[in-house]
């Protein structure tokens, strides 16, 4: 075998490896990218029951009902971004610091009935903490301008009105 031929084989082998990795990654991206949405996004457009989503926002005050179904615990609550609220069901152990008014992210799918079935619920361990995605999205919606100061107390979030374009948001209303 000549040197050139040999080099060709190796290039082919590398191409095969890199190519199959790229093909796998692309096809996996198509099916498995998980988009972060806010309740108002879901109100605007139903993504279909097969699509896994991360729904972020605040647990609406007074919405948490911890019940059980066939001996399995089932929590119901609403996640709100101040404009719309989405009912969520979750069968599992809620995070230790899950509470009303807290910023949370729920991973799951939106059923045809408009109820979000969460497979996972994440909350961070700090009262002033807000999940990065939630903070980011609320900034984009004009609900919080970081330049105007720290985020307002979590308990007031679901009563906030979206800010007018350009105007800094006053904390706590």
């Amino acid at each position: 075998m000549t040197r050139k031929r040999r080099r060709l084989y190796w290039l082919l082998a590398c191409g095969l490896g890199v190519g199959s990795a790229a093909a796998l990654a692309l096809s996996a991206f198509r099916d498995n990218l998980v988009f972060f949405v806010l309740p108002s996004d879901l109100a605007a457009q139903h993504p279909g029951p097969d699509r896994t989503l991360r729904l972020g926002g605040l647990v609406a005050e007074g919405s948490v009902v911890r019940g059980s179904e066939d001996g399995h615990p089932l929590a119901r609550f609403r996640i709100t971004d101040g404009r719309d609220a989405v009912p969520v069901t979750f069968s599992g152990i809620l995070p230790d610091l899950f509470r009303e008014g807290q910023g949370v992210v729920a991973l799951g799918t939106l059923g045809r009935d408009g109820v979000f079935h969460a497979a996972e619920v994440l909350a961070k361990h700090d009262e002033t903490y807000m999940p990065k995605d939630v903070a980011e999205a609320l900034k984009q919606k004009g609900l919080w301008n970081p330049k105007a100061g720290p985020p307002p107390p979590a308990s007031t979030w679901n009563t906030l009105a979206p800010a007018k374009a350009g105007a800094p948001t006053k904390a706590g209303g």
Partner: protein
Amino acid sequence: MIPELGHFALALAVALAAAQAVLPLWGAQRGDARLIAAAPGLAVGQLIALATAFGALVWSNVVSDFSVLNVVENSQAAKPLLYKITGTWGNHEGSILLWCLILAICGAVVAGFGRDLPSALRARVIGVLGASSAGFILFALTESNPFTRVWPPPMDGQGMNPLLEDPGLAFHPPILYAGYVGFAIPFAFAVASLIEGRIDASWGRWVRPWTLGAWAFLTGGIALGSWWAYYELGWGGFWFWDPVENASLLPWLTGTALLHSAIVVEKREALKIWSVLLAIGTFSLSLSGTFLVRSGILNSVHAFATDPARGIFILALLALVIGTALVLFALRAPVLAPSGLFAPVSREGALVVNNILLCSMAAVVFTGTTYPMFANLIGGAQISVGAPFFNATVLPLSVPLFAVMSLGPLLAWKRAALAPAIRKLWWAALAALAVGLTAVYGLGHALAALAFAGAAWLVLGAFAEIVERVRLFRVPVGVSLARLGGVPRSVWGSSLAHAGMGVTMAGVAGMSLAVHTIVAMHPGESVGLGGYQWTLSRLYDAPGPNFTARVAEVTVTRDGRVVTTLTPSRRSYALQRNTVTDTSIRTNLLRDLYTALGEERDGAVVLRLHVNPLAPWIWLGALVMAAGGALSLSDRRLRVGAPARHAAATVPA
């Protein structure tokens, strides 16, 4: 006083590291023997300075000196002594200091054990290590100083994150960091050789033990982290494809590739340029992994603190270290003439396949981990990439890797034929097939059966080389046993490491058959899961040193016979106003009975119950892999000093 001493020692370490970076490199370039000879002393000096600084921080934590901001923020007077010590590295500032300390240890170790290296090369290696040290100690000193004082000192500290108050996590960072930072040595060798413009077989021989050591630590560190996630987070899983986990997996994948390509450099003087690039890439991934995640640039549950100034300093430092190495590589790589031809079917060929597959896996993991960040930067979209993506990409790539893994060591160097190698493995293939068929029949789960077959193939295939070497069943058994003593430890080591991968794979396959349920129970009620009857006997409170625990007593019975009593609990830490689930796990090595306690409401508690078959094998396998690395490292031929004398006699310099 002690914190000021630590602060001063830290500043001294920057100065010594800077000297260590400049003087030996300059000396080696000019051929100045005195400057070259200064390298080891500077490396040891830097280590002493950093060890003093680290010792001062540990001391401040142990005596609870609440005039030190770092201690106030992360400790409390009532914390057990063990966690006062380990809490030193349980926060951003302390962990960076530990990172620098381990890098200094690497420099000193090269100074100590590298006596048989050519002195100019050793000076350059130490110089490169010193340059990276200087940058990171400067970062510790300016942006994350652990010795900042507060006035007036508060009465008590704010306490440590209770999740970290755990023996598994206490020792996880030092071991993991030893792995991460250990790859600095192959990196330094790569850069030093690029400066010299010469790489030959001895480069592979020098680099391999260091890579092996770092790899063994990284394997152990990853396993410990995964074990911690399993028993502490209470989710019942062992790997979540979290950015922090991926950050440790990436250098492991490329480090494993480097481990194998360095063999080719040593034996055949081929793949030289590629190995140098891998050495640079592995350390770059270690660096970006630690710092991007720890600084909160990647979104992760493990991130300590987010501070923009820190982020920019770190990004600049990473760009400087990685960029310099890559520019040097681009300039010098063409000088390194490739040599050592080999046929596609050969030991080298199998190792190249190993490298291609491992690097492809690293590429997809890297893509999946960083894509959300770039998508956010470019399009503003908020996307996350979860476990399904990684499972769909990494698993298919691992199948050919595992197939070749048993075959490779049986191929001859340079040119080989497939048929004889397959003939040596037919029994392993047959056994794997039998295991697979039994598993399909018994479990009815095709994917798990495939994984079990793969595990059997790896474990049996791993020992095929030894079986071959002792000519088992072809010479009398007594002769075979006698020959066993002559098998080099490096062969035992690689067999053990390959077998360890098989054990881990069996564990993962077992875990895919795990069953779990989440139930709300009153005391006295019971539920059936996985052939066991789980009864909640009672609930009670138990005090701890700095927490109070609510404990559930769960009695597990099988066919009316008591198997075990589990006591999952929830710990409330008053100071941190935090609650942590403390799982209770009982294992018999074949299955884990796993319980975690959730909320309590109206006299009923939420319990998460798992039956996890073969779960301990996951970490046991990793331990076997690390042990294989250590065994291989103890082989005389791999020791840096031993072969150098021999090589000097036969190979003209």
